[in-house]
């Protein structure tokens, strides 16, 4: 692809803290390379803001390899931007053209309160995992591959569900700020495997209860979550979660 440079207008959400009122500020950036990542473009702007004595834009990031789930941001109404199956750090500036105005907002949900600017707290996800997203046995050393026989199809589905990086784009994309795609991935990947079997029922009931406590909405099956998920987690996991939950509720003690 041909390299090019561009000048852009950025409308960025600025908010000093969780308790203060935020608003949009407009910045112009120039000479941005089409080969930069979106976060590098913000790095360029931040370096300029620091040099000018201003406050740099706070945003979450860590691995910048698309696997850690730290980066967030809603770019022109799309969590992680316009590219399918891509995190913000893997979104490159060739997605935009010279003269574009880009609106950058934080993930918005009551359960994801803003910490500063584009950073939100996604601790609610950690607490959902703490409610049951684990296997509480002493696993010891790594066992030999194929020591526990697992059907290929189940192993594939479990692996696909386990690809969830917990970034929260599903919540940000959902009109109800529902965390069902995230939860369904976490429940599915353990429910499909023999290691998850002993705690299967308790796990789903506890995790749903925690999800409700955190203030996420219900799933109304618009499937915007699947469309925005950087790991392309399937909404069929949500059907599995519903099945697991119904089964646990009707047969549980």
């Amino acid at each position, binding site marked *: 692809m041909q390299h090019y440079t561009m000048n852009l207008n950025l*409308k960025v959400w600025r908010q000093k803290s969780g308790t203060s009122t935020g608003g*949009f500020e407009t910045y112009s950036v120039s000479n941005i390379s089409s080969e930069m990542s979106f976060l590098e473009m913000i790095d360029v702007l931040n370096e300029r803001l620091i040099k000018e004595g201003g406050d740099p834009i706070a945003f979450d990031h860590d691995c910048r390899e698309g696997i850690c789930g730290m980066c967030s941001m*809603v770019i*022109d*109404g*799309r969590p992680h931007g316009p590219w399918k199956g891509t995190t913000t750090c893997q979104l490159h500036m060739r997605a935009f053209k010279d003269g574009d105005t880009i*609106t950058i*907002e934080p993930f*918005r*949900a*009551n*359960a994801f309160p803003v910490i500063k600017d584009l950073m939100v707290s996604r601790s609610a996800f950690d607490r959902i995992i703490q409610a049951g997203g684990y296997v509480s046995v002493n696993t010891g050393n790594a066992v030999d591959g194929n020591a526990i026989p697992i059907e290929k199809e189940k192993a594939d589905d479990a692996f696909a569900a386990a690809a969830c990086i917990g970034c929260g784009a599903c919540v940000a*994309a959902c*009109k*109800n*700020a*529902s965390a069902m795609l995230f939860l369904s991935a976490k429940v599915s990947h353990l429910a499909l495997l023999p290691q998850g079997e002993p705690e299967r029922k308790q796990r789903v*009931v506890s995790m*749903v*209860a925690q*999800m*409700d406590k955190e*203030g*996420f*909405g*219900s*799933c*109304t*099956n*618009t*499937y*915007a979550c699947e*469309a*925005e998920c950087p790991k392309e987690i399937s*909404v*069929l996991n*949500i*059907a*599995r*979660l*519903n*099945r*697991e*939950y*119904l089964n*646990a*509720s*009707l047969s*549980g*003690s």
Partner: protein
Amino acid sequence: MSWSNLFSTSIGKKLIMSLTGIFLVIFLVVHCYVNANVLFTNGEENFNRAAHFMGTNLLIRVTEIGLFAGFILHIIQGYKLEWLNRSKRASRYAVTAGNKTSKWYSRSMALLGSLILIFLIVHLAHFWVPSRITGLEEVTYDGKPYHNLYLEMQHVFAQPWAVALYLLGCFSLSWHLLHGIQSAAQTMGWTSKNYFPIIRSVGQAFSIVVPLIFALMPVFMHFGWEIDLGSITLLF
């Protein structure tokens, strides 16, 4: 956890929508089949006889109470969920993805449901109230008196505004079902890799065919059209 807590969680609330929705879809099939009599020759007698059966059969009258309960539960729970879900994002986005990531009708179930509710109120006032409460003209077949509900339909659908309103009702129903049927199946946990395409296709076909048959009724009655089936009658 016991099953008694089931319906109070976020998934349980959706289960209520799903179960009542499926019940209402079954009602639509029966309602559509019975009323489709008016589209064919000898529609007056066939339809009036069918309506008589529906109005006098004890089992159906008892089910009717369940039907009202189903409607009320679906409506109240739907509005409660809409309000609850809207409250989960206090600060709104300046820019939204719109139709790029989801279908407009999947995001507009409350709006479509409200249009159907307006239609339903008028519809009940047009037909349910006269046939159950205020009374209808009578007609005699084989020496037995029957309510002439067919005549009432002719009166109502002689008015162009009524035809327009019923068409709007059917249109809203079609979009509502287009999302609702597959959504109900998803909430019940019936969808999987194998079944999802089938459920989606059957749901789409149902959402188009059933409202279309309903929509033909006011149009046929308005223009006095009928289809000649020869010796075949739709009467059960």
